[in-house]
């Protein structure tokens, strides 16, 4: 269990690096922090007010002390205060995150349900017409940016059917599950299409490689049927790259779909980040970006543990 333990130990280390990166990045913003925080309104402050504000936010201390305070706050779940929202950053995140999580899960579900069977199917019919059709669709899917797809979908629906899924107030899942799904299905499709294409391509490629492996030949020499060989012997091996890819994509989706959320007027994490950057609300940027990176690393950790479950070489092995 050496591997699992090492992964677990690595996690806080990279997280620490991420926190330093975010902290320093925010402090690289030109101009002083008060101006950055309050924008044009800071011009109205008297020097005394400025100083007391700086002292309040701890900005009169050097970076190391500031970082230390921030880190201690983080460990207690205190991500600071958003100036534009007038709320604790952690509260804003907790309000917005469920939507982002739901959207990411839906997209991944779509991607895996379409991509995995399509990839395996194409690999077993390599170079035949059905393989070609799958590959063409995957290629086009991968080359269509999600925001372009989102705009085209809106256009087709509004012109073709004269209706658009409710773009008004967002309905949480807990309030009205069907209404919520109706709102999210289009964004999830926009996000899931390229994801599905990527899953298709990687599962096809992995399957093709593995069907040429010696151990698949061994399984055939035992007299097993094609479907048994594929599902029992080839697929578990082909899943390893699929899990990697899905983990990375899902981790990134948890960071919020900045543009798609904007297009569909969804109040997710992506919208918060964009607003925070446009409003120069740096406490919010800092907190949300850190939260997103944290999610990504957690997903990565889960993926690494999934490897260990899938592949005994990793479970007991050296590397």
């Amino acid at each position, binding site marked *: 269990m*050496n591997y699992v333990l*090492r992964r677990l130990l690595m996690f806080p280390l990279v997280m620490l690096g991420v926190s330093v990166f975010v902290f320093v990045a925010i402090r690289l913003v030109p101009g002083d922090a008060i101006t950055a925080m309050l924008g044009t309104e800071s011009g109205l402050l008297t020097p005394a007010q400025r100083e007391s504000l700086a002292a309040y936010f701890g900005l009169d201390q050097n970076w190391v002390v500031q970082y230390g305070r921030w880190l201690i706050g983080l460990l207690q779940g205190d991500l600071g205060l958003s100036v534009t929202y007038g709320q604790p950053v952690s509260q804003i995140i907790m309000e917005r995150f469920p939507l982002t999580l739901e959207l990411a899960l839906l997209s991944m579900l779509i991607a895996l349900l379409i991509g995995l069977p399509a990839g395996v199917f194409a690999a077993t019919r390599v170079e035949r017409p059905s393989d070609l059709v799958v590959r063409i669709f995957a290629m086009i899917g991968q080359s269509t940016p999600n925001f372009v797809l989102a705009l085209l979908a809106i256009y087709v629906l509004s012109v073709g059917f004269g209706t658009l899924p409710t773009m008004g107030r967002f309905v949480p899942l807990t309030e009205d599950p069907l209404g919520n799904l109706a709102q999210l299905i289009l964004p999830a499709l926009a996000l899931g299409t390229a994801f599905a294409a990527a899953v298709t391509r990687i599962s096809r490629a992995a399957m093709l490689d593995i069907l040429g*492996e010696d151990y698949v030949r061994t399984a055939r*020499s*035992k*007299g097993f*049927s094609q479907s048994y060989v594929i599902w*029992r012997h080839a697929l578990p091996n082909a899943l390893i790259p699929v899990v990697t890819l899905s983990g990375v994509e899902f981790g990134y989706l948890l960071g919020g779909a900045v543009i798609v959320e904007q297009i569909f007027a969804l109040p997710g994490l992506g919208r918060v980040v964009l607003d925070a950057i446009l409003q120069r609300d740096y406490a919010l940027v800092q907190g949300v970006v850190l939260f997103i990176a944290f999610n990504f690393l957690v997903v990565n950790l889960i993926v690494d543990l999934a490897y260990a479950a899938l*592949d005994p070489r990793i479970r007991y092995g050296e590397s």
Partner: protein
Amino acid sequence: MTLLSVEDLRVGFGKSGHETEVVHGVSFEVAAGETLAIVGESGSGKSVTAMAVNRLVDFGGGRILGGRAVFDERIDVATATEAEMQRLRGREIGMIFQEPMTSLNPVLKVGAQIDEIFRKQHGLSGRAVRQASIRALDRVRIPDAARRLDQAPHQMSGGMLQRVMIAMALAGEPRLLIADEPTTALDVTIQAQIMALLAELQRETGAGLIFITHDIGLVAGLADRVLVMQGGRAVESGPIDRVLDHPSHDYTRHLLDAVPHFRAGQAVRRDGTRDGRTSALSVRDLSVRFPVGGGFLRRTRGVVHAVDGVSFDLVPGETLGIVGESGSGKSTTARAILDLVRPSAGQIDTEGRSAVQMVFQNPNASLNPRMTVRALLAEPVIAAGQRVDDTVLDRMHTLLARVELPADLDRFPHEFSGGQRQRLCIARALMLNPRVLVLDEAVSALDVSVQARVLELLIDLQREFGLAYLFVSHDMAVVERIAHRVAVLYAGRIVEMGAAQEVLSDPRHPYTQKLIAAIPSIDRRRIDYAIDTEDVASLLRPVGFTAPPQTWRQIGPDHHIATEETS
């Protein structure tokens, strides 16, 4: 009774209608209880023929183009449907492959891969499955079978995995067993174990056996009949004794005469003398250790004593053969001399940096594919800080001519055959006029008939330039032909060293004796290999371990053995 009757079998690869035929009409028969050996070099079509018999060739992009392959006088494999073939595979025709390390599914436990045969082919379920699997491993003499079933393939040695493969092939109680170079990837003592096991299991089951190999010596003790293949055709076939003693085809004679076979010291060189020469390379108490585990966030679990106190001298014009199995430390010794690994102790005396050069095992990997012959030959010169001028170009041409390569400096490595590439490596190693060549398995990756020619070239070059060779090899037959002296390495230490003729004809150390007894030979027919299941010795020692010093016993004027137990 004829179990398998193959007539005019033709096999091809490629798109339907545009196949390239690689097996051009091969015919043979196998009876129950009989062993047929199919012998040939790479590209002879021997493996394709074997894979055509159970139609696994279909899954590698191949197809049977013509002929018949009638199994059990009832079903023609050449025209059978895939569903019919699935009933034959495993149940009637079992198969063992060359690479045990890659032939088992890495993500499934060994037990799961045996269980599935009993479950799907014999309809067993519940506890009966596991018991059958344990019996299957017992049958191939795997100790502690129940525990082994719960292991993953990567936790087992190659020899152990090949036993598992045999157990799986036999689990369906097939009447025909196909073994495709089943021992090529294994050490010679493990090879002997597997050969003994196959022979005994065949006697037990009465199955027919098709044994594919490139080594005609290997099957001398096993086969009843031999089929010799070359370029996709059967050039000769017949009872083993007739083919070995009275070969009728030139190619068979070539395989028997031109290819190095082990002759127990009768084929050693008799030129060369050590008298009065000062050594060109002197190694004293060389040790190389690698920490295991360790690294970032890991504890050092132990130390591998890869090489442990090795000493020898090498004089000009002499070849010292260093022999041993994998893990013996022979390659590490060679690499330490060239400073490719850092010795942890000991002294290496040479006559300067460029005085020792090395030739590696795999000529494909040791030539940068993106460099021309000119750039390849110029590299040592540039590295030595010299200019590539007309003198250097002259030397390139001289050496290319000397190793019998065309004088075209603008070619790339992929334009040459394997043997030619190794000649190019030799020419490159000679660019700086070295005194010593370290040859690390330098002919092992070459086809058997190419080996002999490269060996001849090496001997000629040695005489011409007075070179000293440190010839590292696992192949005793090859060492016998080039070495004046031999050092036998086991678990990082020399256990026996002396004149090649004496060591090879009269080995005295128990390990050397076991090693030499395991070497297949056309001279030793139908000698039963002893079945034993001893696995390779571990070199892993606890941190801080020091091996007891070796003491030596003199056997002859130039023949010593270590007396300390080294394991």
